[in-house]
């Protein structure tokens, strides 16, 4: 287990190195003077500013030396300076990564828990009403674009049924309230964006777990469990779901990257102060250092998520433990 973890961490580090090199090359491949590109095309970059950038990034040196300097900067935790926001990219992202992680994890948990529960219930009676409803809902949820769902939910909850806030992450008037009230306030704000982001994956997990459960429920070991007098609920959740969960885990790990890119749209629609909003704003302003910083951290989140997926997969399936 330990050697597996070490190996995965080394792979993860190599992957991040690849992301950094790609980042570096992207800027160099952009047309024009890299210094101007880095400074951002706001037209406001003064000659001194450009000179400072050339100095910082060693732009007069050969490409390989530039790469070395860039890697050194990244290793020291320096991802450059956003000239639009006028602060370092790392501090910009540090302020916004929390809300994004909160949103993405909530959506992930919401979609896995509800999706799997729906799939399990549907699999119990494959030709029943609930099973049909789950299929219809899954197809719709799968087909509808996430920003459209968001806008529809905003319309619904802004005017028709104003139960959930449709904008932002916290109410300003509660700024000085005790932490528990602020947490509840954030959770309240979280409902719509998290659900919007979750719905497509929720639909996917419902379909997947329905199919997976139906396959597992036909397995010989389920018959064995029933033959020893196991109550149906234990058969479903103890014997069947643990096996049926394996493909769900795999897909959940693979989907994590998509979830992060989905968060970009959802954060924009709901004005959620996270990394997605930051990416959106900096793309509009051609704020390259910030875009690259967001890319770097989003990649890091995906790499971490994949390592966690592999770990949980091994915990869930004893056949993968030991040896390889």
């Amino acid at each position, binding site marked *: 287990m330990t050697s597996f973890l070490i190996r995965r961490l080394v792979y993860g580090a190599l992957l991040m190195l690849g992301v950094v090199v790609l980042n570096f090359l992207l800027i160099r491949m952009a047309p024009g003077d890299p210094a101007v590109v880095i400074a951002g095309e706001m037209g406001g970059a003064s000659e001194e500013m450009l000179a400072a950038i050339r100095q910082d990034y060693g732009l007069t040196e050969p490409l390989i030396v530039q790469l070395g300097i860039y890697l050194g900067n990244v290793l020291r935790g320096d991802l450059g300076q956003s000239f639009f926001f006028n602060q370092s990219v790392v501090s910009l992202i540090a302020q916004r990564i929390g809300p994004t992680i909160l949103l993405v994890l909530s959506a992930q948990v919401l979609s896995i828990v509800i999706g799997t529960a729906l799939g399990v219930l549907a699999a119990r009676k494959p030709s029943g009403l609930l099973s049909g409803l789950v299929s219809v809902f899954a197809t719709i949820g799968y087909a509808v674009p996430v920003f459209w769902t968001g806008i529809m939910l905003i319309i619904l909850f802004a005017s028709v049924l104003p139960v959930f806030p449709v904008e932002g992450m916290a109410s300003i008037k509660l700024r000085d309230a005790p932490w528990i009230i602020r947490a509840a306030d954030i959770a309240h704000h979280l409902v719509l964006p998290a659900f919007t982001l979750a719905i497509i994956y929720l639909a996917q997990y419902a379909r997947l777990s329905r199919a997976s459960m139906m396959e597992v429920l036909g*397995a*010989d*070991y389920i*018959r*064995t*469990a*029933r*033959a*020893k*007098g*196991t*109550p149906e609920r234990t058969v479903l959740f103890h*014997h069947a779901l*643990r*096996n049926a969960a394996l493909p769900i885990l795999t897909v959940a790990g693979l989907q994590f990257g998509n979830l992060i890119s989905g968060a970009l749209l959802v954060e924009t629609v709901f004005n959620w102060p996270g990394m997605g909003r930051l990416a959106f704003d900096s793309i509009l302003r051609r704020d390259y250092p910030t875009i690259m910083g967001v890319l770097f951290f989003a990649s890091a989140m995906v790499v971490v998520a994949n390592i966690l997926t592999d770990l949980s997969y091994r915990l*869930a*399936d*004893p*056949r993968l433990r030991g040896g390889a």
Partner: protein
Amino acid sequence: MSLLQIDQLRVTFQTRHGAVTALDGVSLSLNAGETLAVVGESGCGKSITALSVMGLISSPPGRIAGGAVRLAGEDLTHASEARLRAVRGAEVAMIFQEPMTSLNPVLTVGDQIAEAILLHQDMTRSEAWTQAVALLDRVGIPSAAARAKDYPHQLSGGMRQRVMIAMAVSCRPKVLIADEPTTALDVTVQAQIFDLLNEMQRDFGVAIMLITHDMGAVSEMADRVAVMYAGRVIESGAADDVLDAARHPYTRGLIGCIPSVDHGGALAEIPGVVPPLHLLGAGCAFAERCAHVREGCRLARPELQGGAHSVACFGAQEGWV
């Protein structure tokens, strides 16, 4: 009165071809402590019979359309699901054909045995675990305490079938149904499993219903035999009688299929296959494959008659087979 009495059991399945009758008036009886072999080719209804006793016919598409399964006098076909759960594992236990796939891959074998114990006996978890280890030791698994923590994929096929047997006898059932318990195993392991089953019967006094298509297994294990064909019992009697003086042409065919060392040449076979159940006509289901068939065989279906060694064949009943 027999311990387990199956009376005129009818089971139907809803299929694309309409309702087919998988079991058509099957009657069997199993006395305490004896071994009854239920013999027949694939698709003749042996496993359906076993699953009906357990109340495990998946419904839909299956349905018990008539008859009764009486365990010590109690009709299980009308028992509640809760009552059936209490019977399963505790009074009637079952061993399946495929030890490779019959154990849950994500649970340790010790846990799976302990679960059966906890379901039916008033014990703590650690007591049940201790009991599970003792059972594994009892069925001949070396260093049982360590093996109990293994997952099924870490054990060989023979070991897994031993685990299944340990699980089946864990609550001292009165009836043990073994559905082709050795089909998937090597020949040397088969003999070990039969020995183990015989031992379990001696030690626990359990009655065994052995479902098999292997006449060799019958001669080794069974006190009595029931031969099934296309959802009906076509011959039944004491194992020695049936093996030495089979009356039905089909049973003779099955016995003829046993390979023997001193009999060289090609193996005997029964020509043709079991007809699809939805294509069964009014006559004897074996007529199409029978060397002795006469016109009357295709018109009416012979009933099982003849006392202790009974047969459902006009030819055998009238003496021209």
